């Protein structure tokens, strides 16, 4: 079973970054894209920030995602400009504005994809423990990442079963909601019970500190990435305070 966070260790075939660095990069990109205006020095920084996810997606050797990101961004960036003059006001009001605002969200989302596509669950937990995040947060988060693929898998199973019994056609949406979600929830609660018993036998409730096989730590590339992020965040703060 393939989890969303990778099960294997991040290998040397990609640029290895500490999970904490990736989180900082995520926050930097989304902060700049969301909070900053296209004024002053940010006229130059915002385009750079849109290219950063592209670079990272290229580095993890997923060209499909990089192309997808590029096309999505270009569409969101240019299409509203081109069509806005030819559409009635009401459509512009509801539709084009959302599309244009997407340009601010897509880079952040792509960075998040980069974060979860290159980090294993163990690394992620190790990083969270280094950041002194309490157990009440780390356990649910790790269970959550373990559960995303399970949900998808179970849902496909339910869809298959429904098709087999000819329940798949269009009906009352409230009924469809019930037919799909109830089996899903029943199987998920059953899986959840099994999972919690298995985790308890492996000492989830143990008061001791959890040890971890994944060695995480900062390397040269981490320091470079952190330095760049910090500089940009400081610039953002200065720009908010003084308006350069």
């Amino acid at each position, binding site marked *: 079973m393939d989890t969303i966070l990778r099960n294997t260790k991040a290998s040397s075939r990609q640029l290895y970054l500490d999970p904490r660095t990736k989180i900082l990069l995520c926050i930097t990109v*989304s902060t700049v894209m969301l909070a900053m205006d296209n004024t002053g020095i940010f006229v130059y920084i915002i385009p750079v920030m849109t290219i950063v996810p592209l670079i990272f997606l290229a580095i993890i050797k997923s060209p499909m995602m990089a192309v997808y990101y590029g096309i999505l961004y270009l569409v969101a960036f240019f299409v509203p400009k081109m069509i806005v003059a030819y559409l009635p006001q009401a459509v*512009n009001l509801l539709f084009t504005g959302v599309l*244009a605002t997407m340009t601010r969200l897509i880079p952040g*989302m792509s960075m998040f994809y980069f974060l979860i596509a290159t980090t294993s669950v163990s690394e992620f937990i190790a990083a969270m423990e280094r950041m002194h995040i309490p157990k009440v947060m780390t356990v649910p*988060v790790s269970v959550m990442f373990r559960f995303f693929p399970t*949900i998808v898998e179970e849902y496909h199973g339910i869809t298959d079963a429904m098709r087999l019994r000819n329940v798949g056609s269009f009906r009352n949406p409230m009924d469809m909601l019930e037919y799909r979600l109830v089996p899903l*929830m029943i199987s998920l609660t059953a899986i959840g019970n099994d999972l919690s018993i298995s985790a308890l036998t492996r000492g989830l409730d143990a008061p001791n500190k959890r040890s971890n096989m994944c060695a995480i730590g900062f390397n040269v590339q981490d320091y470079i990435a952190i330095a760049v992020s910090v500089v940009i965040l400081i610039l953002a703060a200065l720009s908010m305070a003084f308006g350069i």
Partner: protein
Amino acid sequence: MSSKETSNRLNGKDLMNVGIFTAVFLVIEIIVACVLGVFPMGFLLISVVEAIILGIPMMLYFIRVKKFGMILITVVINGVIMILTGMGPDALRYGFFIGLLCELIMYWGKYKSAFKAILAYAVFGLIAVTNYIHWLYASEEWLEGQRANYGDAFVEGVSGAFSAGWVFPVLCVVTVVAGLIGGFFGKAVLKKHFVKSGLI
């Protein structure tokens, strides 16, 4: 979490439950947002549709919540994910208080009352509304900066949708009502399927 009595501490099983239902919550939230977000008008309906669809899983969750802190953890995780995906800090900032309010409503019903659980779920639906907040406030200044790029007609058209004063409160109220409907629907479904089969 915050309660120090040993009987009220969250144990491993509770934390597993939090993880499972937070995963379900996030998956449904993201799917609904992706499907509706591309349609005109659908964007504003995301929170309402979510409140109805999430009725079944979240009522199952809220009925399992017996200790203080579980809903709060769900809300905080949701907020952190929203920050990392670039939706801004509003989901965490305002969501924390919404989560606290849910906990208080649940506490008011001693974590047993089914009606209080439905009420708490209706309030919980507001979590999705927090994602709209930055469109309301930040978008106006940003759109001023975009005037040069996109032209006057565009800026006026867009800021009209976001800055109309009544949109946001109406959205909140509609979401809470949808949450009540979803909650009652979820409760009925639970009674029909889960109680009968002995899963609760």
